[in-house]
């Protein structure tokens, strides 16, 4: 009857005989009679064939506008990059796909070595000494970083830059409502200048951490070194947030500029858009703070025969050992997405990442200039990587919808991200990656021109 269930009725009878039960229901006798459903649950139809399910799901999928089918320029924390076909092949290897957290290292070296490689790549990319084996996503990683800073500094007042992704800020402020942390943050302004100076001026002896996004939500880039110095001088930590790690192919790493903790969203390397999830949180820090870090860590060791091997280590930080004293409650994280990330990054290598970043930046520069040449439209950013903010002569939200009507996904309106803020309503954030063709760019330019005039 059901393609996923191997037991036959004959098996079931024989097994009941061995067990000494007369029916399966007897095995459910601990469930009070009146809490057991009598037949199949109501509402849900009976089992369906692959064909029927596939048809239903395909029909639903066709109700969405597919990024790859149209000129597409959305970013703000999720980027469309081309993913090599081999990445999807690798993550579909049954031995990766259908394995568990590597608790039995003798038969999990595949996952463990991959984690160790991932940790090294993330640490190097972020310019840090160590990195963990993944978090849920960038936004939860940022909150975990604030908590970690709290543990390290034993302080609880953190400053969040106005350039941090508003969803990330929302996550932190939500969580802080229930913890002993106080967060300060403001809304960004439509100007080339970030709030770096203002942040530094607000650091004091009670500051736990300063949280800055790099590049920030408007695509701007700030030198983190002065902020790091200011924070560290006051005994606080600098937490840097990276939502577009491809940028680090061209830009100085946050670690290099002195950040103590660097967290990020790994989606843009290997993972794909997927309507927001699953993604993969990146988390790196200084070696001296590693015992305050959340999440799994793979470490090198040797086996009984002297061969190099890898194990999960420093588990005394974790919930399954430390329970309520753990550094985090995280258990299942995002290892398969980490595999996608690490295998894509291995395919790129330093050279490929640099080329990819260069290509992204070059195209973004070109598009920025072309769009800023539309009458009434101006470019907010001075510096940017592959994403920049335009100030439109009209509100950006309706503009985005009007572009959709022209078959173009033209950017993210700041009105969507900051619905409350009058001052931001004309802001449109445009991301340009290698995945946009020349025709796509022409279409964007034409659509925007048409809509704003």
């Amino acid at each position, binding site marked *: 009857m*059901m393609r*996923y269930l191997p*037991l036959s009725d004959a098996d079931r009878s024989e097994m009941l005989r*061995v067990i000494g039960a007369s029916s*399966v229901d*007897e095995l459910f006798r*601990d469930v009070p009679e009146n809490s057991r*459903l009598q037949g199949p649950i109501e509402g*849900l139809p*009976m089992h369906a064939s692959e064909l029927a*399910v596939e048809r239903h*799901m*395909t029909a639903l*999928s066709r109700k969405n506008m597919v990024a790859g089918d149209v000129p597409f320029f959305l970013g703000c924390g999720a980027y*469309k990059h081309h993913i090599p076909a*081999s990445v*999807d092949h*690798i993550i579909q*290897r049954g031995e990766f796909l*259908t*394995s*568990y957290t590597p608790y039995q290292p*003798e*038969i*999990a070296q595949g*996952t463990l*070595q991959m984690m*160790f*490689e991932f940790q090294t790549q993330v640490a190097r990319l972020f310019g840090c*000494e160590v*990195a963990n*084996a993944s978090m849920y*996503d*960038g936004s*939860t990683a940022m909150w975990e970083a604030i908590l970690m800073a709290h543990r390290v500094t034993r302080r609880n007042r953190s400053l969040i830059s106005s350039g941090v992704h508003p969803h990330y800020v929302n*996550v932190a402020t*939500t969580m802080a409502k229930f913890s002993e942390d106080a967060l300060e943050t403001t809304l960004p302004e439509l100007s080339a200048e970030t709030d770096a100076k203002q942040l530094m001026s607000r650091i004091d002896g009670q500051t736990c951490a300063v949280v800055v996004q790099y590049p920030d939500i408007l695509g701007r*880039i700030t030198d983190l070194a002065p902020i790091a110095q200011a924070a560290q001088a006051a005994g606080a930590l600098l937490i840097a947030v990276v939502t577009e790690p491809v940028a*680090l192919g061209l*830009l100085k790493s946050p670690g290099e500029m002195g950040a103590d903790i660097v967290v990020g*969203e790994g989606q843009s390397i290997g993972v794909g*858009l997927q*309507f*927001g999830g699953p993604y993969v949180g990146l988390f790196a820090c200084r070696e001296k703070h590693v015992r305050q870090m959340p999440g799994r860590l793979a470490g090198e*060791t040797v*086996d009984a025969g002297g061969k190099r091997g890898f194990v999960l280590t420093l*588990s005394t930080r974790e919930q399954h050992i*430390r329970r*309520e004293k753990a550094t985090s*409650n995280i*258990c*299942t994280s995002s290892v*398969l*997405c980490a*595999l996608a990330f690490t295998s894509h990054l291995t*395919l790129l290598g330093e050279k490929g*990442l640099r*080329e*990819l970043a260069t290509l992204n930046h070059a195209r973004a520069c070109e598009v920025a200039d072309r769009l800023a040449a539309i009458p009434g439209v101006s470019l907010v950013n*001075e510096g940017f990587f592959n994403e920049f903010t335009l100030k439109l002569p009209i509100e950006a939200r309706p503009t985005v919808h009007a572009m959709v009507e022209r078959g173009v996904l033209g950017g993210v309106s700041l009105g969507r991200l900051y619905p409350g803020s009058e001052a931001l309503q004309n802001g449109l954030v445009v991301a340009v990656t290698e995945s946009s063709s020349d025709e796509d760019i022409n279409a964007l330019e034409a659509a925007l021109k048409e809509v704003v005039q």
Partner: protein
Amino acid sequence: MTVNPSGWRPSTPVNEEGKIRTVTGNRALMLEEPLIFEIGSSEQTGVDFESRPVAKGHRLAGLERSKPIGLPGLSEPEAVRHYTRLSRQNYAIDLGLFPLGSCTMKHNPRLNEKVARLPGFADVHPLQPQETLQGALQVINELAFWLLDLTGMFGVAMSPKAGAHGELCGLLCIRAALEARGDKREVVLVPESAHGTNPATAAFAGYRVENIPANTAGRVDLDALRARLGPDVAAVMITNPNTCGLFEPDMKAISEAVHATGAFVYCDGANFNAIVGKVRPGDLGIDAMHINLHKTFSTPHGGGGPGSGPVVLSEALSPYGPLPFVARYEDGSYKIVEEETAGAEHPDAFGRMVAFHGQMGMFTRALAYILSHGADGLKQVAEDAVLNANYVLRSLSDLLEAPFAKSGPCMHEAIFSDRGFSNEITTLDLAKALIDEGFHPMTMYFPLVVHGAMLVEPTETESKASLDQFIAAVRSIAGRAKSGDETLKSAPIYAPRRRLDETLAARKPVLTYREPQAEQATK
């Protein structure tokens, strides 16, 4: 099927293995694989780009990277081989029985992988205008609908990223509900046998954790619980079926007792597989329960995630659920309710737990799973999972101590202890010997309430033949364990690695690769 299905014929044993050390370290198809840092180079790449003239100069605010990163690249052939060879060092459900108790390592249908990769799901941006996302929103809405149907609950929060995140969501709903009535409570009660995430989450949510004891039948001690309840207790976290694989028959009484003191019942739904389609948690008086889609609804574990942990909520808690969520309108359209719109429609929402909308890639798989099984199939899932576990329990309980087997059947997992093993032999040794037999070990030393616990969860997607082979292997090893066979200490001998030195790893943590030169320089 016989236990040894490979067609061996009796012959003089051949023992040459291990005698010859190969030059490469490989053993035929068991291949060694270096680190990418040892085989790749920063000038190698497996990706080509269109070479286009780069625009006039950078606009990088003077922050161009000047130092190399140290990222090795591999060409595609090398990369595919690297990861394929690594993968072959892993055990997985696709290879055989993976009876890791509490983890529900069931088969992951390949249809679901296909469906999740439909461009209309895989290639959609979370911030697209909502008129371009109606299909995605409908998926979330349909899945939510069936989760409510299956649990008999009132509302559901879809955005939590895994089980532990779901626990957090549930506790925050509780906290928000309590705060909304001005009730500041400080304690969450958690059974000793609970999964580590339960106390960790309670602490994460700002609560003090207190244990509640189990009775001799492996269940929550209702009297002890009643005695502890009071105005300082915000919630009780119960796992049902619990981590000993037993149903809490007093669940309703527990709920009533908890509610009578103004507290809430959080249910850890990690073990929902035992009762899906048979019992609706909503009928047991619980207020919040997370569902691990990566357990009961078979989204792949992937070596440790991604998962997805939607939380079903009672009517009392639903108003406090997090943002964003999907609402269906009368005209058949769907909308994301987030900070902007929540004010009016959902004023008590406690806020956002995560950027974007949760694990769409898991939602599509779980929905396909639910529709594939249907009402009859899901009921069968629970029944077969319970049947398989009891079959293992009864087939081993003469040889292994099964602390709760006397009191009756188990649910979806069977628990044993190491009592009766010869002194030196431990649960760990049995587990490692199972590796040589071609099985993944069971969960070891969890829950803490059973000595040397071995928690076996076969799941419903195992055939009887597979269980019979497993039983034969465990019986053989258990026999050796009882007779004190020392060779168990050296297991595994056939795996890619022998036992690994975990102490060394923790004492001198090496968490990232260092080039040999760099290593030397620091020495």
